[in-house]
Protein backbone atom coordinates (compact mmCIF):
# COMPACT_ATOMS: atom_id res chain seq x y z
CA UNK A 1 0.00 0.00 0.00
CA UNK A 2 2.70 2.44 0.93
CA UNK A 3 5.23 3.15 -1.70
CA UNK A 4 8.45 1.37 -0.92
CA UNK A 5 10.93 3.15 -3.10
CA UNK A 6 13.53 1.07 -4.73
CA UNK A 7 16.76 2.83 -5.63
CA UNK A 8 15.62 4.77 -8.64
CA UNK A 9 17.60 7.73 -9.84
CA UNK A 10 16.53 10.67 -11.94
CA UNK A 11 18.95 12.30 -14.32
CA UNK A 12 19.39 15.90 -13.19
CA UNK A 13 19.73 17.18 -16.76
CA UNK A 14 16.41 15.61 -17.63
CA UNK A 15 14.84 17.13 -14.56
CA UNK A 16 16.19 20.55 -15.50
CA UNK A 17 14.84 20.28 -19.05
CA UNK A 18 11.42 19.16 -17.89
CA UNK A 19 11.14 21.79 -15.18
CA UNK A 20 12.87 24.60 -17.07
CA UNK A 21 15.39 25.17 -14.34
CA UNK A 22 19.07 25.87 -14.56
CA UNK A 23 21.57 23.19 -13.56
CA UNK A 24 23.42 25.78 -11.47
CA UNK A 25 20.30 26.12 -9.32
CA UNK A 26 20.33 22.39 -8.59
CA UNK A 27 24.03 22.54 -7.77
CA UNK A 28 23.47 25.42 -5.35
CA UNK A 29 20.78 23.34 -3.65
CA UNK A 30 23.34 20.59 -3.25
CA UNK A 31 25.85 23.03 -1.78
CA UNK A 32 23.32 24.22 0.77
CA UNK A 33 22.58 20.61 1.72
CA UNK A 34 18.96 20.72 0.58
CA UNK A 35 19.42 17.83 -1.84
CA UNK A 36 21.92 15.06 -2.39
CA UNK A 37 23.35 14.33 -5.80
CA UNK A 38 24.71 10.94 -6.78
CA UNK A 39 27.16 10.75 -9.66
CA UNK A 40 27.28 7.55 -11.67
CA UNK A 41 29.61 7.40 -14.66
CA UNK A 42 29.91 11.18 -14.75
CA UNK A 43 26.16 11.66 -14.85
CA UNK A 44 24.50 13.44 -11.94
CA UNK A 45 21.33 11.95 -10.48
CA UNK A 46 18.97 12.58 -7.61
CA UNK A 47 17.19 9.81 -5.78
CA UNK A 48 13.56 9.45 -6.92
CA UNK A 49 12.44 9.73 -3.31
CA UNK A 50 13.77 13.31 -3.36
CA UNK A 51 11.70 14.31 -6.39
CA UNK A 52 8.74 15.62 -4.43
CA UNK A 53 10.97 17.71 -2.19
CA UNK A 54 12.93 19.05 -5.14
CA UNK A 55 9.77 20.02 -7.00
CA UNK A 56 8.58 21.82 -3.90
CA UNK A 57 11.86 23.74 -3.72
CA UNK A 58 11.59 24.66 -7.41
CA UNK A 59 8.08 26.01 -6.83
CA UNK A 60 9.17 28.05 -3.82
CA UNK A 61 12.09 29.49 -5.74
CA UNK A 62 10.47 30.23 -9.08
CA UNK A 63 6.84 30.83 -8.16
CA UNK A 64 7.34 32.68 -4.90
CA UNK A 65 10.75 34.26 -5.46
CA UNK A 66 12.11 32.84 -2.22
CA UNK A 67 15.86 32.60 -2.11
CA UNK A 68 17.74 29.45 -1.11
CA UNK A 69 18.39 30.67 2.43
CA UNK A 70 14.67 31.31 2.82
CA UNK A 71 13.85 27.88 1.41
CA UNK A 72 16.25 26.27 3.89
CA UNK A 73 14.42 27.95 6.76
CA UNK A 74 11.02 27.01 5.34
CA UNK A 75 11.96 23.36 4.87
CA UNK A 76 13.28 23.25 8.43
CA UNK A 77 10.14 24.88 9.83
CA UNK A 78 7.86 22.60 7.81
CA UNK A 79 9.72 19.60 9.22
CA UNK A 80 9.19 20.97 12.71
CA UNK A 81 5.49 21.54 12.01
CA UNK A 82 5.24 17.99 10.76
CA UNK A 83 6.89 16.61 13.88
CA UNK A 84 4.64 18.73 16.05
CA UNK A 85 1.56 17.43 14.23
CA UNK A 86 2.73 13.90 14.89
CA UNK A 87 3.32 14.72 18.53
CA UNK A 88 -0.12 16.31 18.84
CA UNK A 89 -1.64 13.20 17.31
CA UNK A 90 0.17 10.97 19.84
CA UNK A 91 -0.84 13.23 22.74
CA UNK A 92 -4.46 13.32 21.58
CA UNK A 93 -4.51 9.53 21.50
CA UNK A 94 -2.99 9.42 24.97
CA UNK A 95 -5.59 11.89 26.21
CA UNK A 96 -8.39 9.68 24.96
CA UNK A 97 -7.41 7.03 27.49
CA UNK A 98 -8.40 9.40 30.30
CA UNK A 99 -11.64 10.50 28.72
CA UNK A 100 -14.54 8.40 29.88
CA UNK A 101 -16.96 9.18 27.06
CA UNK A 102 -15.76 8.80 23.53
Amino acid at each position, binding site marked *: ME*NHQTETFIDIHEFCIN*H*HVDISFILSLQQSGLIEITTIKETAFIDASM*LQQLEKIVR*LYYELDINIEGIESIIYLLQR*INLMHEEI*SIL*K*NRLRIYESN*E
Partner: protein
Amino acid sequence: MTFVDYYKILGIEKTATPKDIKIAYRKLARKFHPDLNPNDNDAKKNFQQINEANEVLSDPDKRQKYDQYGKDWQHAEQFEKANQEQSSGFRGQRNSNEQSGGDFSVFFESMFGGTEGAGRGRQVKYRGEDYTSQINLNLVDAYKTHQQTISVNGKNIRITIPAGIENGQTIKISGHGSPGINGGPNGDLYITFYIANHTIFKRLGNNLYASIDVDLYTAILGGEITIDTLNGKVKLKVLPETQNGSKVNLKGKGFPVYKNEGQFGDLQVTYNIKVPTNLTEKQKELFTELSKS
Protein backbone atom coordinates in the same frame (compact mmCIF):
# COMPACT_ATOMS: atom_id res chain seq x y z
CA MET B 1 -22.83 32.56 -10.71
CA THR B 2 -21.68 35.61 -8.79
CA PHE B 3 -19.28 38.29 -9.85
CA VAL B 4 -15.77 37.79 -8.56
CA ASP B 5 -13.81 40.91 -7.75
CA TYR B 6 -10.23 40.01 -8.67
CA TYR B 7 -8.96 43.40 -7.49
CA LYS B 8 -10.47 42.81 -4.07
CA ILE B 9 -8.96 39.33 -3.91
CA LEU B 10 -5.48 40.75 -4.50
CA GLY B 11 -6.24 43.75 -2.26
CA ILE B 12 -5.39 46.32 -4.93
CA GLU B 13 -7.04 49.32 -6.58
CA LYS B 14 -8.42 49.22 -10.10
CA THR B 15 -5.68 51.62 -11.05
CA ALA B 16 -2.96 49.18 -9.92
CA THR B 17 0.06 48.95 -12.19
CA PRO B 18 1.42 45.57 -13.38
CA LYS B 19 4.13 45.98 -10.77
CA ASP B 20 1.54 46.52 -8.01
CA ILE B 21 -0.28 43.39 -9.18
CA LYS B 22 2.89 41.35 -9.15
CA ILE B 23 3.83 42.52 -5.66
CA ALA B 24 0.33 41.88 -4.30
CA TYR B 25 0.21 38.43 -5.90
CA ARG B 26 3.64 37.42 -4.59
CA LYS B 27 2.77 38.59 -1.10
CA LEU B 28 -0.47 36.61 -0.98
CA ALA B 29 1.01 33.60 -2.76
CA ARG B 30 3.72 33.39 -0.10
CA LYS B 31 1.01 33.42 2.53
CA PHE B 32 -1.32 30.85 1.01
CA HIS B 33 0.89 28.66 -1.19
CA PRO B 34 -0.06 24.97 -0.59
CA ASP B 35 3.61 24.06 -0.11
CA LEU B 36 3.71 26.39 2.87
CA ASN B 37 0.33 25.31 4.21
CA PRO B 38 0.21 21.52 4.03
CA ASN B 39 -3.22 19.98 4.66
CA ASP B 40 -4.87 23.38 4.91
CA ASN B 41 -7.90 23.42 2.63
CA ASP B 42 -8.71 27.06 3.35
CA ALA B 43 -5.23 28.14 2.29
CA LYS B 44 -5.54 26.00 -0.83
CA LYS B 45 -8.84 27.65 -1.73
CA ASN B 46 -7.39 31.11 -1.13
CA PHE B 47 -4.37 30.25 -3.25
CA GLN B 48 -6.62 29.13 -6.12
CA GLN B 49 -8.48 32.43 -5.90
CA ILE B 50 -5.39 34.63 -5.91
CA ASN B 51 -3.88 32.53 -8.70
CA GLU B 52 -6.98 33.02 -10.77
CA ALA B 53 -7.02 36.75 -10.02
CA ASN B 54 -3.39 36.97 -11.05
CA GLU B 55 -4.00 35.03 -14.25
CA VAL B 56 -6.52 37.63 -15.29
CA LEU B 57 -5.04 40.86 -14.00
CA SER B 58 -1.46 40.19 -15.04
CA ASP B 59 -2.52 39.59 -18.64
CA PRO B 60 -3.32 42.93 -20.35
CA ASP B 61 -5.91 41.41 -22.73
CA LYS B 62 -7.73 39.52 -20.02
CA ARG B 63 -7.58 42.48 -17.70
CA GLN B 64 -9.07 44.70 -20.36
CA LYS B 65 -11.94 42.29 -20.95
CA TYR B 66 -12.46 41.89 -17.23
CA ASP B 67 -12.42 45.66 -16.69
CA GLN B 68 -14.80 46.18 -19.60
CA TYR B 69 -17.34 43.49 -18.84
CA GLY B 70 -16.33 42.21 -15.42
CA LYS B 71 -19.08 43.60 -13.27
CA ASP B 72 -21.65 43.30 -16.05
CA TRP B 73 -20.31 40.08 -17.42
CA GLN B 74 -23.87 38.73 -17.82
CA HIS B 75 -24.67 41.52 -20.27
CA ALA B 76 -21.39 40.94 -22.04
CA GLU B 77 -22.34 37.33 -22.56
CA GLN B 78 -25.73 38.28 -23.91
CA PHE B 79 -24.08 40.81 -26.16
CA GLU B 80 -21.58 38.28 -27.48
CA LYS B 81 -24.29 35.66 -27.91
CA ALA B 82 -26.39 38.09 -29.92
CA ASN B 83 -23.39 38.91 -32.05
CA GLN B 84 -22.68 35.23 -32.73
CA GLU B 85 -26.27 34.53 -33.65
CA GLN B 86 -26.39 37.48 -35.98
CA SER B 87 -23.18 36.60 -37.73
CA SER B 88 -23.86 32.90 -38.17
CA GLY B 89 -27.59 33.08 -38.64
CA PHE B 90 -27.85 29.99 -36.52
CA ARG B 91 -30.38 30.07 -33.74
CA GLY B 92 -29.69 26.77 -32.09
CA GLN B 93 -29.85 26.10 -28.41
CA ARG B 94 -26.67 26.80 -26.54
CA ASN B 95 -25.36 24.04 -24.39
CA SER B 96 -24.44 25.86 -21.25
CA ASN B 97 -23.29 24.36 -18.02
CA GLU B 98 -23.73 27.58 -16.19
CA GLN B 99 -24.93 27.25 -12.68
CA SER B 100 -25.78 29.86 -10.17
CA GLY B 101 -24.24 29.71 -6.74
CA GLY B 102 -20.98 31.60 -7.07
CA ASP B 103 -18.74 28.93 -8.52
CA PHE B 104 -15.45 30.75 -9.02
CA SER B 105 -14.21 28.62 -11.90
CA VAL B 106 -17.51 28.94 -13.73
CA PHE B 107 -17.05 32.69 -13.62
CA PHE B 108 -13.49 32.42 -14.89
CA GLU B 109 -14.43 30.05 -17.68
CA SER B 110 -17.39 32.14 -18.74
CA MET B 111 -15.05 35.11 -19.10
CA PHE B 112 -12.01 33.47 -20.58
CA GLY B 113 -13.14 30.13 -21.93
CA GLY B 114 -11.43 27.77 -19.53
CA THR B 115 -7.99 27.61 -18.09
CA GLU B 116 -6.23 26.15 -21.11
CA GLY B 117 -5.54 29.55 -22.56
CA ALA B 118 -4.30 30.73 -19.23
CA GLY B 119 -1.07 28.84 -19.33
CA ARG B 120 2.16 30.24 -18.05
CA GLY B 121 3.71 30.18 -21.48
CA ARG B 122 5.93 27.18 -20.91
CA GLN B 123 5.19 23.50 -21.28
CA VAL B 124 6.44 22.47 -17.88
CA LYS B 125 5.74 18.98 -16.60
CA TYR B 126 3.96 19.35 -13.31
CA ARG B 127 3.36 16.63 -10.82
CA GLY B 128 -0.37 16.20 -10.20
CA GLU B 129 -1.97 17.57 -7.10
CA ASP B 130 -2.08 15.38 -4.01
CA TYR B 131 -5.49 14.31 -2.80
CA THR B 132 -6.44 13.89 0.83
CA SER B 133 -9.18 11.72 2.20
CA GLN B 134 -10.28 10.31 5.51
CA ILE B 135 -11.62 6.98 6.67
CA ASN B 136 -13.55 6.48 9.88
CA LEU B 137 -13.05 3.13 11.58
CA ASN B 138 -13.98 1.69 14.91
CA LEU B 139 -11.46 0.04 17.19
CA VAL B 140 -12.69 -3.45 16.29
CA ASP B 141 -12.15 -2.74 12.56
CA ALA B 142 -8.65 -1.44 13.24
CA TYR B 143 -7.81 -4.63 15.10
CA LYS B 144 -7.77 -6.73 11.93
CA THR B 145 -6.20 -6.25 8.51
CA HIS B 146 -9.05 -5.68 6.13
CA GLN B 147 -9.88 -4.19 2.77
CA GLN B 148 -12.06 -1.22 2.00
CA THR B 149 -13.14 0.46 -1.18
CA ILE B 150 -13.10 4.22 -1.12
CA SER B 151 -14.23 6.69 -3.70
CA VAL B 152 -11.83 9.50 -4.53
CA ASN B 153 -12.87 12.00 -7.17
CA GLY B 154 -15.37 9.54 -8.61
CA LYS B 155 -12.83 6.73 -8.82
CA ASN B 156 -13.09 3.64 -6.64
CA ILE B 157 -9.87 2.51 -5.00
CA ARG B 158 -9.57 -0.70 -3.05
CA ILE B 159 -7.10 -0.44 -0.22
CA THR B 160 -5.81 -2.80 2.42
CA ILE B 161 -5.83 -1.36 5.90
CA PRO B 162 -3.18 -3.08 8.03
CA ALA B 163 -4.14 -4.14 11.53
CA GLY B 164 -2.91 -1.80 14.24
CA ILE B 165 -3.39 1.46 12.43
CA GLU B 166 -3.37 4.43 14.81
CA ASN B 167 -6.01 7.06 15.28
CA GLY B 168 -4.93 10.12 13.26
CA GLN B 169 -2.38 8.14 11.22
CA THR B 170 -2.01 9.12 7.58
CA ILE B 171 -0.91 6.73 4.87
CA LYS B 172 0.21 7.58 1.37
CA ILE B 173 -1.01 5.78 -1.73
CA SER B 174 1.36 6.75 -4.49
CA GLY B 175 0.06 7.82 -7.86
CA HIS B 176 -3.60 7.99 -6.89
CA GLY B 177 -3.75 11.78 -6.74
CA SER B 178 -4.58 14.13 -9.57
CA PRO B 179 -3.05 13.27 -12.98
CA GLY B 180 0.18 15.05 -13.83
CA ILE B 181 0.16 18.03 -16.17
CA ASN B 182 1.97 17.86 -19.52
CA GLY B 183 3.07 14.29 -18.84
CA GLY B 184 4.22 14.89 -15.27
CA PRO B 185 3.72 12.14 -12.67
CA ASN B 186 0.43 11.71 -10.85
CA GLY B 187 0.02 13.14 -7.38
CA ASP B 188 -0.43 10.94 -4.34
CA LEU B 189 -3.42 10.13 -2.20
CA TYR B 190 -3.12 10.70 1.54
CA ILE B 191 -5.65 8.93 3.74
CA THR B 192 -6.03 9.83 7.40
CA PHE B 193 -7.72 7.33 9.69
CA TYR B 194 -10.00 8.32 12.53
CA ILE B 195 -10.74 5.51 14.96
CA ALA B 196 -13.75 5.66 17.25
CA ASN B 197 -13.65 3.51 20.34
CA HIS B 198 -16.92 2.07 21.63
CA THR B 199 -15.37 -0.81 23.54
CA ILE B 200 -14.48 -1.24 27.21
CA PHE B 201 -10.82 -0.99 26.24
CA LYS B 202 -8.66 2.08 26.25
CA ARG B 203 -5.85 2.03 23.72
CA LEU B 204 -2.45 3.54 24.14
CA GLY B 205 -0.19 2.60 21.26
CA ASN B 206 -0.28 -1.18 21.07
CA ASN B 207 -1.41 -1.69 24.65
CA LEU B 208 -4.98 -1.98 25.81
CA TYR B 209 -6.32 -1.17 29.25
CA ALA B 210 -9.54 -2.40 30.81
CA SER B 211 -11.20 -2.22 34.18
CA ILE B 212 -12.96 -5.48 35.16
CA ASP B 213 -15.44 -5.97 37.97
CA VAL B 214 -14.70 -8.79 40.43
CA ASP B 215 -17.17 -9.78 43.12
CA LEU B 216 -16.03 -9.52 46.72
CA TYR B 217 -16.12 -13.25 47.40
CA THR B 218 -13.90 -14.13 44.44
CA ALA B 219 -11.54 -11.32 45.40
CA ILE B 220 -11.23 -12.65 48.95
CA LEU B 221 -11.27 -16.38 48.32
CA GLY B 222 -9.73 -16.43 44.85
CA GLY B 223 -11.23 -18.04 41.77
CA GLU B 224 -11.57 -17.74 38.06
CA ILE B 225 -13.25 -15.12 35.90
CA THR B 226 -13.80 -14.93 32.16
CA ILE B 227 -13.17 -11.63 30.41
CA ASP B 228 -13.71 -10.43 26.85
CA THR B 229 -10.76 -9.35 24.76
CA LEU B 230 -10.82 -8.05 21.19
CA ASN B 231 -9.83 -11.56 20.17
CA GLY B 232 -12.32 -13.64 22.13
CA LYS B 233 -12.78 -14.66 25.73
CA VAL B 234 -9.93 -15.28 28.17
CA LYS B 235 -10.02 -17.06 31.53
CA LEU B 236 -8.22 -15.30 34.36
CA LYS B 237 -7.19 -16.65 37.73
CA VAL B 238 -7.95 -14.31 40.58
CA LEU B 239 -5.61 -14.83 43.50
CA PRO B 240 -7.05 -15.02 47.02
CA GLU B 241 -7.08 -11.69 48.89
CA THR B 242 -6.88 -9.66 45.70
CA GLN B 243 -6.97 -5.95 46.45
CA ASN B 244 -9.15 -3.39 44.69
CA GLY B 245 -7.15 -1.71 41.91
CA SER B 246 -4.78 -4.65 41.47
CA LYS B 247 -3.42 -4.92 37.95
CA VAL B 248 -2.76 -7.98 35.83
CA ASN B 249 -0.78 -7.80 32.61
CA LEU B 250 -1.87 -10.16 29.82
CA LYS B 251 1.05 -10.38 27.46
CA GLY B 252 0.18 -10.40 23.76
CA LYS B 253 -3.52 -9.78 24.35
CA GLY B 254 -3.35 -6.13 23.37
CA PHE B 255 -3.54 -4.45 19.96
CA PRO B 256 -1.70 -5.71 16.88
CA VAL B 257 1.57 -3.96 16.13
CA TYR B 258 1.19 -2.02 12.85
CA LYS B 259 2.81 -3.88 9.96
CA ASN B 260 4.35 -6.48 12.26
CA GLU B 261 2.18 -9.49 11.68
CA GLY B 262 1.78 -11.77 14.68
CA GLN B 263 3.01 -9.17 17.16
CA PHE B 264 0.67 -7.74 19.73
CA GLY B 265 0.84 -5.34 22.63
CA ASP B 266 -0.37 -6.22 26.12
CA LEU B 267 -3.72 -5.99 27.82
CA GLN B 268 -3.61 -4.56 31.30
CA VAL B 269 -6.60 -5.50 33.44
CA THR B 270 -7.40 -3.52 36.57
CA TYR B 271 -9.63 -5.30 39.09
CA ASN B 272 -12.53 -3.29 40.35
CA ILE B 273 -13.87 -5.13 43.39
CA LYS B 274 -17.61 -4.81 43.80
CA VAL B 275 -18.93 -4.76 47.34
CA PRO B 276 -22.27 -6.59 47.57
CA THR B 277 -25.39 -4.57 48.23
CA ASN B 278 -28.86 -5.46 49.54
CA LEU B 279 -27.45 -7.94 52.04
CA THR B 280 -29.83 -10.38 53.69
CA GLU B 281 -30.04 -10.53 57.48
CA LYS B 282 -28.12 -13.79 57.41
CA GLN B 283 -25.33 -12.25 55.32
CA LYS B 284 -25.13 -9.28 57.67
CA GLU B 285 -24.81 -11.65 60.60
CA LEU B 286 -22.02 -13.52 58.89
CA PHE B 287 -20.16 -10.30 58.12
CA THR B 288 -20.58 -9.18 61.72
CA GLU B 289 -19.18 -12.49 62.87
CA LEU B 290 -16.29 -12.08 60.43
CA SER B 291 -15.54 -8.60 61.71
CA LYS B 292 -15.21 -9.96 65.24
CA SER B 293 -12.89 -12.78 64.26
